[in-house]
């Protein structure tokens, strides 16, 4: 059996980006989600939306291109792109809440087998920032969360019931971790893919709720 591999942050982003379909409007959260924009498939045209008010902006700016008035939701300077549109915050969240975002990718602290998401309250600080996460979790047509499979202490982040403050209930459609790709279905969590060298049993041990192993379980393609 092959050596066990964990996906890097970049590889997780690469795997998530495979879910983007041609013509989709995609919103990327801060952190690993932002990296997804680095792996565009050349045969797909994706329109990225950022909640601070731009649709169809380009990649991050080089120092030469830098414009303080063109930033993404993470505060990074981005570039203009032909066919871009700019708008105010109320319009941006009309888009988000109104179901006009095809896919959203968010980071996560905990996710439950019902698709409940907790990603905003920082427990070590007793406080946090909701930001646009709640609106995106509720409004996006499809929500993918991306995260390390366990905490730094090895505790499951995929749980039966979130102990942290919720972002939204029953909102997650797919979980991509450094070890697995899991679909949230009405019947429960379906393990679809595992990282190279890992077995379904090993993933189950690191996951609190019972996983349903997909009949066509396969290894995550790393490129």
């Amino acid at each position: 059996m092959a050596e066990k591999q964990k996906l890097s942050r970049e590889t997780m982003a690469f795997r998530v980006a495979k879910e983007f379909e041609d013509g989709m409007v995609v919103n990327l959260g801060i952190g690993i989600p932002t990296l997804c924009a680095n792996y565009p498939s050349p045969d797909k045209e994706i329109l990225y939306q950022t909640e601070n008010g731009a649709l169809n902006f380009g990649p991050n700016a080089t120092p030469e291109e830098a414009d303080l008035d063109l930033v993404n939701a993470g505060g990074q300077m981005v570039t203009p792109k032909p066919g871009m549109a700019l708008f105010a915050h109320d319009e941006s969240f009309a888009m988000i809440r109104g179901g006009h975002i095809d896919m959203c990718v968010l980071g996560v602290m905990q996710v439950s087998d019902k698709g409940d998401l907790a990603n905003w309250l920082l427990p070590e600080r007793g406080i946090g920032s909701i930001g646009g996460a709640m609106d995106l979790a509720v409004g996006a047509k499809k929500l993918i969360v991306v995260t390390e499979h366990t905490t730094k202490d090895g505790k499951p982040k995929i749980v039966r019931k979130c102990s942290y403050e919720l972002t939204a209930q029953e909102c997650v459609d797919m979980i991509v971790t450094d070890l697995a790709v899991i679909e949230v279905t009405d019947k429960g969590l379906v393990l679809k893919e595992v990282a190279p060298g890992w077995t379904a049993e090993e993933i189950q041990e690191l996951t609190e709720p019972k996983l349903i192993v997909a009949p066509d379980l396969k290894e995550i393609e790393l490129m």
Partner: protein
Amino acid sequence: MAINKVVDSFDEAVKDFFDGATVLLGGFGTPGGCPSYLMEALGRHGAKDLTIVCNNVGFGKELMQVVAMFTKAPDWWYDGGQLADNRQVKKAIAAFPVLASPLLVSPFEKQLRASEVEIDIVPQGTLAERIRAAKAGIGAFYCPVGPGTIVEKGKEIKVIDGRKHVLEYPIKADFGLIRAYKADRLGNLIYRGTSRTFNATMAGAAKVTIAEVDEVVELGDLDPESVVTPALYVDRVAVRPEAGRTEIIQKISKEEQLQK
């Protein structure tokens, strides 16, 4: 694959309409501001029992002859009244279903008097806000317009800051037919003058938004700061023939007016 929302014809743009659909019809009250060609194609399509959502239910072909004398619109250029002419309308949700002058009785009003169609009359601002609510994912809103009038009938009332409000719900539609000036292949739109009106409000409010434009420009030709309707609100774009373009009609209109 490059995204391309531009379809080849107005008929293709409306091909998936179905009987009983709810349709947002853009424009305010003058034919210049409404999606005339899309409505004409919807006439050819023949879908029946439509619920139309619009400011003004339209003049129809007969009255347009009168109106054309004042506006100098081309005489082939009809407004939403043609759907009533064709007897495709079951119900209208509108702010201005009856024309001000008693001499101007629209086909819709005739059918209304004969109890052949239904009307749900809505204040204009509430109509705009209910359409926006559908676009913006708002479940319902308390509106200060309507208390003590016919509008409050059957609605929940709540006193907020000492003022009565009525609870209004979003108008959810299957299709939106709108008129814009220019588009790019992604569906970004700009409008022209006061033709923005309900057109821009309706963009994105229905399951499928179809825009009728004068011209599709190259990607990058629309200034990102001036795009009124961002691409994600638009599903299809159909282009008017040259004779229907604003510049051409303006020119004819002006020449005819000056001849008087």
